């Protein structure tokens, strides 16, 4: 019944083929600033729309300085200092080469080309960035321009992820997005013109008020825009957001799981017909080469540094994260203190949970050598109800099981 060949009990952790440290090494840099905080957002953000231009610029400069200082400190502390105590001595103290960099937010492009380029370059100064590494910057269509993209290309950025969310005006209004429906398409063209090699459009579906026709039109617009990657996420309303409070007060209808499932199926159909491969629950690419390597690193349980406000990092079974408050972050870094707000060392059981909950998001599932130990009865149960399957020894979700992944994982877990 088990898809696993007989191996040492911890081999899935110590000798993975494509998971964990074998998946590469990434750096995530967070820029919290936004013009306005959208109603559904529960990221670490800081709205700066009501500040004057000079005031904003001064804050941005301070932040970029702090960000690069923080990165410098985290790197200088050494790889072993970040690792779980149990694994510390066995760990190679040298930092591996960086295979992906991701600048997310917030709205990183609010910083403008030169400051954003400084952020990207800081990584190359502190760490060894591999040739051909993927370097992504999240981009808000309102702040995009050919000049901005040119500055980014110059700094080594290879990929831009554009937050379009929807191409239906009333859905953008509900989501409190300020751009016009045409703007992301124009911004994609500008990025391509500036020489950005890989382009992604970010979408949200299942927003209250969105119709099936709205969603289909949005997907068709995406195909016409000519990107090589699409991310489409089901809207999740968190209690601690403006949307969450509106739902609790009855001012906003809650999201409907049947509608979200219908949208998901439409996305599979339309994007599939457009030549996109559905490689992760929420991600599509034009063939394997155009998959997002930084996101793959997350799904494959890899190691990454996290720098900036509310950033998360992972190194072989230890996770740590920085404060979500921009003020506290700046104060700490400028004071020479640590901005780290918390950390946890994972037990092997927790690492097994993560390996499954992340790895099963991928269509390819997990390599046979990378699957943690699963109770044969639990596996038989998850297979019997049609949630997971094995293919060439790989453990993966079935087509139906994919959108019910949490159920699959809770069945497989001890």
């Amino acid at each position, binding site marked *: 019944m088990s898809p696993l060949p007989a191996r040492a009990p911890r081999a899935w952790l110590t000798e993975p083929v494509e998971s964990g440290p074998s998946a590469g090494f990434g750096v*995530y840099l*967070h820029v919290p600033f936004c013009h306005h905080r959208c109603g559904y957002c*529960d*990221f*670490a953000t800081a709205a700066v729309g009501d500040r004057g231009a000079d005031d904003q610029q001064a804050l941005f400069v301070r932040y970029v300085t702090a960000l690069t200082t923080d990165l410098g400190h985290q790197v200088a502390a050494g790889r072993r200092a970040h690792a779980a105590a149990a694994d510390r001595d066995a760990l190679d103290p040298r930092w591996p080469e960086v295979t992906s960099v991701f600048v*997310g937010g917030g709205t990183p492009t609010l910083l403008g080309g030169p400051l954003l380029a400084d952020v990207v370059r800081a990584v190359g100064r502190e760490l060894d960035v591999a040739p051909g590494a993927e370097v992504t910057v999240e981009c808000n269509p309102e702040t995009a321009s050919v000049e901005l993209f040119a500055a980014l290309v110059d700094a080594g950025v290879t990929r831009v992820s554009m937050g379009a969310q929807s191409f239906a005006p009333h859905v953008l209004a509900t989501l409190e997005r300020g751009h016009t429906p045409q703007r992301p398409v124009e911004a994609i063209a500008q990025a391509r013109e500036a020489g950005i090699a890989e382009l992604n459009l970010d979408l949200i579906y299942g927003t209250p008020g969105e119709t099936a026709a709205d969603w289909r039109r949005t997907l068709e617009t995406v195909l016409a825009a000519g990107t090589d990657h699409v*991310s489409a*996420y*089901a809207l*999740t309303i968190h209690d601690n957001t403006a949307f969450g409070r509106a739902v609790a007060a009855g001012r906003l209808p809650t999201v409907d*799981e*049947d509608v*979200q*499932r219908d949208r*998901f199926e439409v996305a599979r159909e339309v994007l599939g017909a457009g030549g996109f491969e559905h490689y992760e*629950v*929420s991600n599509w690419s034009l063939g394997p080469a155009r998959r997002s390597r930084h996101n793959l690193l*997350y799904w494959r349980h890899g190691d*990454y540094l*996290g720098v900036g406000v*509310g*950033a*998360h*990092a*992972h190194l072989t079974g230890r*996770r740590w*994260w920085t404060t979500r408050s921009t003020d506290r972050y700046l104060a700490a870094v400028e004071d020479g203190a640590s901005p780290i707000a918390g950390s*946890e060392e994972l037990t092997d059981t*927790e690492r097994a*949970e*993560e390996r499954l*909950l*992340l790895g099963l998001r991928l269509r390819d599932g997990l390599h046979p050598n990378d699957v943690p130990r699963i109770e044969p009865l639990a596996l038989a149960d998850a297979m019997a*109800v*049609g*949630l997971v399957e094995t293919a060439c020894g790989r453990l993966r979700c079935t087509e139906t099981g*994919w*959108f*019910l*992944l*949490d*159920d699959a*994982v*809770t069945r497989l*877990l001890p």
Partner: protein
Amino acid sequence: MTYAIDRIRNFCIVAHVDHGKSTLADRMLQLTELVDPRKMRDQYLDKMDIERERGITIKAQAARLPYLPLGEAGGEYLLNLIDTPGHVDFSYEVSRALNACEGAVLLVDAAQGMEAQTIANLYLAVEADLEIIPVLNKIDLPAARPDEVAREIASIIGGEPEDVLRISAKTGEGVREVLDAIVDRVPPPKGDLDGPPRALIFDSIYDPYRGTLVYFRVVDGSFRPGDKIHLMATGFEGEIDDLGVHSPEETPIDALGVGEVGVLSAAIKDVAQAKVGDTITLAGKGWEAVPRLPGYREPLPMVFSGVYPIDSDDFPQLREALDKLRLNDASFSFEPETSAALGFGFRCGFLGLLHLEIVIERLDREFDIPLITTAPSVRYRVVMERDDPETGEPRVLSVSNPQDLPEPNQIRAIEEPTVLAMILTPSEYVGKVMQLCEGRRGTMIAMDYPTEERVELRYLLPLASIITDFFDTLKSISRGYASLDYEIGDYVAADLVRVDLLLNGEPVDAFSAIVHRDDAYAFGRSMVETLKELIPRQMFDVPVQAAIGAKIIARETIKAKRKDVLAKCYGGDVSRKRKLLEKQKEGKKKMKSVGSVEVPQEAFVSALRSGSAKSDS
């Protein structure tokens, strides 16, 4: 100090919940200067926390009040206040406590007027031949209507409205007059001073250090520490370790004679060995010749419910807790049972619904075991088609769990317990109250008008139809004014069927119920709708069906779930995602797998409650 028999007065207070019985008792204790004001707390006699919180008395208590009336030259009187339980579930206990008295203070709230329960207890007191002293309480309240209520009392007990005493237990006004009336009007006890000692047990409670404490009233002769006693119903024999009186703290005493009230301990391990109503006499030669005091009855559970630990690992702790509770409460019974849906648990029997609630609350409060209790049911008599081969008589089964009901073709008849209910209501609600009773398969027996504004309705009702939410519904349709009392009636044949609930085609035993055939469709419909709401969507479509035997009477479908995946990891925040998933996993552990369907624990409780409530309309 011993008292001559003609100086003793034994009395109780008959009152409705909230009419101020405990406050009056507190005031009497203060007036006779028995309680140090610093130790005074409200409702001094109510010992259990639950009693004090709910303002009801579950267990009877007694207090000894030495009282010197003003201007009295002949010396002190000894007043024994025997506090009675205040709820219909405990009417047998009430009747025994009343039998230990010669007089009763009938205490009525001057704003509320007489209530059904008060009248029922009043009738018990009259039956026990007690001298009744009517008292109006709370005359200081703005809403008080003393003249009207005094007329009402007079019309029920006879006598003149002017004879009704008017007091405020809260301020103490008129309390001395009540004590004087007890001295003047309640007769002293009668008994054979030199005959073989006999005493009536009117309560017994369990004390973890001393074993069972027996509250009793001496009828004949006297008892001393060291006497070897014999309890006539249970056969228990043992030596009196401690003999005492409550004044109101327990105080040792060297003898108790005719008419006196006290407490004894005799290394009685279990309250079931010292049952309310039993007769105490002396062990040794000759006890067989001593006549038992009349009126003893074995406690009879009327309401049954399955009690299951939510976590099956708690089963041994639950058994231990039930054993401990039973030490303290002989009227509650339990035996192990198994449910396919809920696992191992116990079928518990209670005197009534309040008793059930009190026991469950004590399990929760004192033992901290999370429980599922199934819908309360009654005990049916099932007459089988086949006669008993030995006697040639029809075989009769006693069924308190719907699961134990045999197949319909094996049953000749089912009989259910009934109650004779007395409902007192302001006349404006009489229509609604009658509608409620008719809807619960009630048959009207009588309708009287004790006063112009109030109606006394008597109905014969199936016990099963009043044990869930009848009282709550009665209160809500009458804005809280109607009151209910009942006594257990006979078993009566009825057209009853078992409605089973099926999930994904599998019957779930814990949801089954025995209902009247006329109510079966409404009950089945309401149950499938409720379960559809409460059971989360599963991996596949789940039919929810209600059935009588093989016939499906209602159906809903819980559609297969279509989305169960968390959104993306924000900036690599995997910790949050893992924790959310762990929470989901914990939630799943609280589900019971029934067949292949995951049913949350709440569904068992809420479905049963709402099922019974909805079938009403």
